[in-house]
């Protein structure tokens, strides 16, 4: 087995991660993050049209009629019922503190019908979310993640007590934050609107990356018992090297599944699945990277610092 020296190069690995996160942060400061209606509150109306329409024109028309800010977009989706046919949808997002009244909604549909070639009896979709509910979905999601993290810290602290469980738990959580931060960077960089899909993707990534990290920690835990004569650096290096094949193989298999989903969704223009699988791909790669190159080295750095402090105190 090839022995990697990850500990020796750990600062390089930390730097790469930090650089990506900082780039995401810069984009976040410059671009901000656009929240989807699902979180910000407002009304979304989707109307099927015959062929593509001018979304800019639709935006201006509806904006003038309502006196509210509107974002219009056109979307194309393959028709699942008829091979080769495409469904054109005009999507209007009206984000505001209040959802549209029935009268306002009818007005929007009338304006679009008068000015564009709306398909008779075609698909129509509507989403209306009170801002309070949207914010609550976001906050509840975050709350759930925080509580789950606390329980995971407790569990890992208990199960990995032989390798100073608390340090192991905290560094595992840092690795997860790293994965979510990198996935999150996708949104300000490419100006994607952040919606409920992100929460699902982030949760999947957290679950997967935690699984990866735990397997490596398990090896470290075991090797501390088996390799009593080796230095901690050697033990961590060996453990990561031993887990390398498995980590790569299982990540490749999961990536195969998710990339297949992404490609199929792209071919058929299914935006909901695309929005879900793209952050997953980024997150899976980030998660594997952090399990191999961040969590273990970080844990070791923590332990070395702690024992150094103890030594200093004694002296």
């Amino acid at each position, binding site marked *: 087995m090839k022995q990697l020296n990850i500990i020796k190069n750990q600062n390089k690995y930390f730097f790469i991660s930090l650089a990506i996160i900082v780039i995401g942060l810069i984009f976040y400061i410059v671009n901000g993050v656009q929240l989807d209606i699902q979180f910000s509150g407002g009304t979304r109306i*989707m109307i099927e049209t015959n062929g593509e329409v001018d979304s800019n024109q639709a935006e201006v028309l509806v904006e003038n009629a309502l006196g509210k800010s509107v974002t219009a977009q056109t979307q194309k989706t393959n028709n699942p019922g008829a091979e080769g046919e495409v469904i054109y949808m005009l999507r209007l997002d009206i984000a505001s503190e209040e959802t549209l009244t029935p009268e306002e909604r009818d007005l929007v549909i009338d304006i679009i019908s008068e000015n564009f070639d709306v398909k008779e009896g075609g698909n129509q*979709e509507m989403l209306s979310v009170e801002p309070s509910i949207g914010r609550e979905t976001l906050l509840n999601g975050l709350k759930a993640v925080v509580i789950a993290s606390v329980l995971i810290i407790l569990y890992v602290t208990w199960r990995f007590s032989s390798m100073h469980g608390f340090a192991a738990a905290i560094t595992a959580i840092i690795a997860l934050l790293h994965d979510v931060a990198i996935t999150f960077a996708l949104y300000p960089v490419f100006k994607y609107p952040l919606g*409920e899909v992100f929460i699902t993707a982030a949760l*999947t990534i957290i679950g997967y990356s935690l699984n990866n990290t735990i397997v490596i920690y398990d090896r470290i835990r075991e090797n501390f018992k088996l390799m009593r004569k080796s230095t901690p650096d050697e033990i961590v290096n060996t453990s990561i090297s031993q887990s390398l094949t498995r980590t790569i193989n*299982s990540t490749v298999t999961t990536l195969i599944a998710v990339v297949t989903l992404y490609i199929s969704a792209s071919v058929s223009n299914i935006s909901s699945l695309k929005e879900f699988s793209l952050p997953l791909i980024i997150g899976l790669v980030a998660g594997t990277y952090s399990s191999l190159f961040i969590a273990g080295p970080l844990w070791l750095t923590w332990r070395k610092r702690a024992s150094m402090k103890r030594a200093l105190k004694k002296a």
Partner: protein
Amino acid sequence: MRNYSILKLVAVIIVIAVCAFLAFNEVKNDNIRTGIDIRGGVYAILEPDIDKSSLSAEEVDKGLESAKTILGKRLDARNIFDRSINIDSVNDRIIIEIPWAAGETNFNPQDQLNELGKTALLTFQEVDKSKVDENGNYLPTGKIVLQGTQVKDAYAAAYQEKGEWVVVLDLDESGVASFAEATGRLVGEPIAIFMDDQLISAPVVSQKIEGGNAIITGQANATEAAELAATIRSGALPFRLVATKVDSISPQLGTGAMNVAVKAGIVGFLLVCLFMILVYRLPGLIASIGLFGLAVLTILSVAWTKISITLPGIGGIILAIGMGVDANCVIYERIKEELREGKTLRAAVDQGFHRAFTAVLDSNVTTLITAVVLYALGSGPIKGFAMTLGIGVAISFITAVTATKLMLQGVTGISAFKNKWLYGVK
């Protein structure tokens, strides 16, 4: 001993085959429920329009419970039987999901929901002729002579003489008494009939009515009369419910997403199996059988527990399958290590499973913790994700650890499969 080993292998394969057959039937009979985001339909969150601090938690719970029953009756009256009404007791609200009926494409969900969320408190009130709105309609006075709770039954009827539609109310005992008393006292005066604060009609009392029936006139047509009768029959809600979130999704777009997800799932599954077999050879094949078992058991548990599969739910299944594959990778790498150290096949398999067990256990337990917390605290999409993830991880623990272990032990007992090359080691 050798025959016993083969028995294990055969038994596991038979169990998986039976499950696959059952799962196939469930799929064929359309017993897999899909969520609104896939099937199309309306998803709505209704919140009580009250100051929550004015009611105790118990009163709110009771109110929501009765609101749920009444909403059910109102939907029955509209011939909407395929629906789910759930109380979200954490956030004190009601979640309604109504899938599209076949052929139905456009109805205005927001208006319907607002209609549905009305308290529908029916009252007959004395009028004060000086209290009218700008159109000359009477305003509520609060002097109630009869109310909805005193109505036994309500139905629409055609009023022959005038050719108009009315709603006939059958009153209960107390209703008969108070209606007779009021009509006796108010001959020549109008009585106003209100639904919530809205005036429906204000007929003038021509004589004392003792028959136990009251009639609401002024209905535009048969449908309107029938709807009003149904609303009165189903009773009044304890509070008004407002729709704070309404999501109406077209069935066609949802079906498109589902088709693509299923196809991608099958292709992805086959590719993963191919990869596992190329990398791990015979154990890879066994892992693929285990994965197939995971897939069919997931389908079965989803069908039997009547969970709705949502798009986030598919995310949960992907993660569970990913973790199942990973458990196999962890175990097989261990087995290879043991084989390289020169252990016999049998010992290597046993040791491999034994030493990989803590890693697989800990990673599965942490994921289960996540799933349980998300299920308990999350709402909507998060709950759907947590549910399938929890089920999937529990199943994958059985298929990826127990089932593959039994099959591998079985295979290693067969002399034709003793070559170490088959296990990825020279």
